[in-house]
């Protein structure tokens, strides 16, 4: 295919905004000791807070019971036995995977749509940004009304089409989808704006070359557009996944983590343990779990990103 032609690849790596992205920063090699020391000095304030959280996680620390007793690993042992933590991790996995897949697919589709020429394109682009601009807490609270069984917008449409009124926030599965759908509605705009910018960075000559090779719309998208966007898509998957794991407002206002613990997320659990139960030690242990999951997503994602980059 034309996209693997060496000359064109050169063109891309030199001028496309795709290649001048976040990646070169990670490509650092042969760091001198001084540089590493300086880096640590600068990163210390960021790390320090995690160290404090880490420290508190070894204590039975509650402002209600007025305790600050060292308990070793007790909080972490409790973590492994807590069924709320299990339920939270299950939903975190479901929510992150489903939401990221939907956001990337819709984000690419909307970017393609907004890249076409048509009347009112600017207005459509502005409308696309509206959910991005709205406060997460507004959307999460309003979504509770929109998913209302009897008077909500969603059930009105479903009822007109099928005569059914599903109990969105009462059933485990539908509650999980309600949270995911709301999240996708709010956040896809962000991805689509970035993908649109990525599309605009692809040189037109590549499409012309693909056309000469006989590739039509779908095939030139598959063989030219997607491979070139791939590093961007992967880095956006990492960003989006991390922010899904950290989500708070959406379950705080839409479901309160319910029914039961079906839609509980780790940030919400930290909030409950820390500021409702006032169990700072245990909440810190949960926060550390959250920290390590985010770290894991980041490190794994970076591995994929590097490989995708080498392939381009």
């Amino acid at each position, binding site marked *: 295919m034309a996209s693997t032609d060496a000359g064109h690849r050169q063109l891309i790596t030199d001028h496309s905004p795709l290649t001048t992205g976040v990646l070169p920063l990670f490509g650092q090699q042969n760091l001198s000791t001084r540089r590493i020391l300086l880096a640590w000095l600068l990163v210390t304030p960021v790390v320090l807070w995690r160290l404090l959280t880490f420290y508190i996680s070894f204590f039975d620390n509650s402002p209600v019971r007025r305790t600050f007793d060292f308990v070793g690993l007790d909080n972490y042992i409790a973590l492994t036995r807590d069924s709320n933590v299990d339920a939270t991790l299950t939903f975190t996995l479901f929510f992150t995977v489903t939401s990221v897949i939907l956001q990337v697919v819709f984000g690419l589709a909307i970017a393609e749509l907004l890249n076409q020429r048509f009347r009112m394109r600017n207005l459509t682009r502005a409308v696309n940004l509206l959910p991005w601009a709205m406060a997460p807490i507004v959307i999460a*609270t309003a979504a509770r009304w929109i998913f209302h069984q009897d008077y909500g*917008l969603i059930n009105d449409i479903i009822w007109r089409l099928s005569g059914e009124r599903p109990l969105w926030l009462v059933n485990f599965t539908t509650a999980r989808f309600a949270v995911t759908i709301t999240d996708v509605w709010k956040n896809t705009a962000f991805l689509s704006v970035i993908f649109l910018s990525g599309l605009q960075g692809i040189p037109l000559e590549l499409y012309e070359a693909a056309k000469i090779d006989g590739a039509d719309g779908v095939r030139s998208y598959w063989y030219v557009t997607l491979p070139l966007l791939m590093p961007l898509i992967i880095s956006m998957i990492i960003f989006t996944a991390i922010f899904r794991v950290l989500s708070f407002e959406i379950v705080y206002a839409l479901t309160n983590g319910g029914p039961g613990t079906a839609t509980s997320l780790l940030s919400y659990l930290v909030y409950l343990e820390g500021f409702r139960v006032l169990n700072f030690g245990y*909440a810190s242990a949960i926060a550390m779990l959250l920290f390590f999951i985010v770290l894991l997503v980041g490190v794994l994602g970076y591995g994929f990103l590097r490989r995708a980059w080498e392939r381009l």
Partner: protein
Amino acid sequence: MNTQLDFKRGIRTTLFILVVILFLTVVLLPIYYIFLTAFAPSGKLFTVPLTYVPRSLAVERFQDIFGALPIARYMLNSTMLATLSTVLALTVSLLAAYAIARLDFPGANLVMVGLLASSMLPGTATVIPLFQMYQSLNLMDTLLGLLILYGSALLPITTWVLVSFLRQVPVEIEDAAKVDGASFFPLLWRIVLPVIRPGIATMFLINFIIGWNEFFTPLIFARGAGVKVITMALSEAQVIGARSEFDVSWGNMSAVAILTTIPVFIITLIFQRQIVEGITSGVFK
């Protein structure tokens, strides 16, 4: 032959228009529904099936929430926090961004990575030590305390974007000014600032929106009515005049939602291009 081709093209155009309409509906219909709920006259709120074109609108919800809650105070607090934290973040970030983009000191890239990493680990991972520290420093329930938290949350992304804007601007103008003997701060103020004004304006808009929309930070650190912000009024409005736990006023909630959303919609619709540039320059370049 020709008519067949025209026919095919006609179908494609129609399909495309349908897709655009579907997209606009998915985005706008939920927003319109909240608008309807906020302005529905009492008694017209719970109808089956829904009436999408109302016969009359009422402002009684807005009278209710302004009567029961210090909405003006909340909105003032939101405005102050969003504006001041934006100014704070821009000032600090501009200095850092200038150093990173122009002074080429060792580790500049690592600072950028550190900033990125810290922006990825916000809120909950550090909230407990912060909460305890704020209590011992008497920063709880103070605008200053909130301002520090808001500002520091905005710093990483702001620095990233300003660096990318600075790198697009040629250094020659600054060099010429240096030859003419301009010292650091006048140089920054008279030469650098005007050149990257678009970048500053963009980040001002985006940071204002982020600050205005903030909820988790005030939920934990602002508990007195004097420092509460507009996003916290959503749940308070729901229970105005409630007789039980299950008696939720969706009309009042929607009215607060409209009040919270109008300012950010105005900004977004007017400055669409600048905002998109800000979002993308944080990722590219």
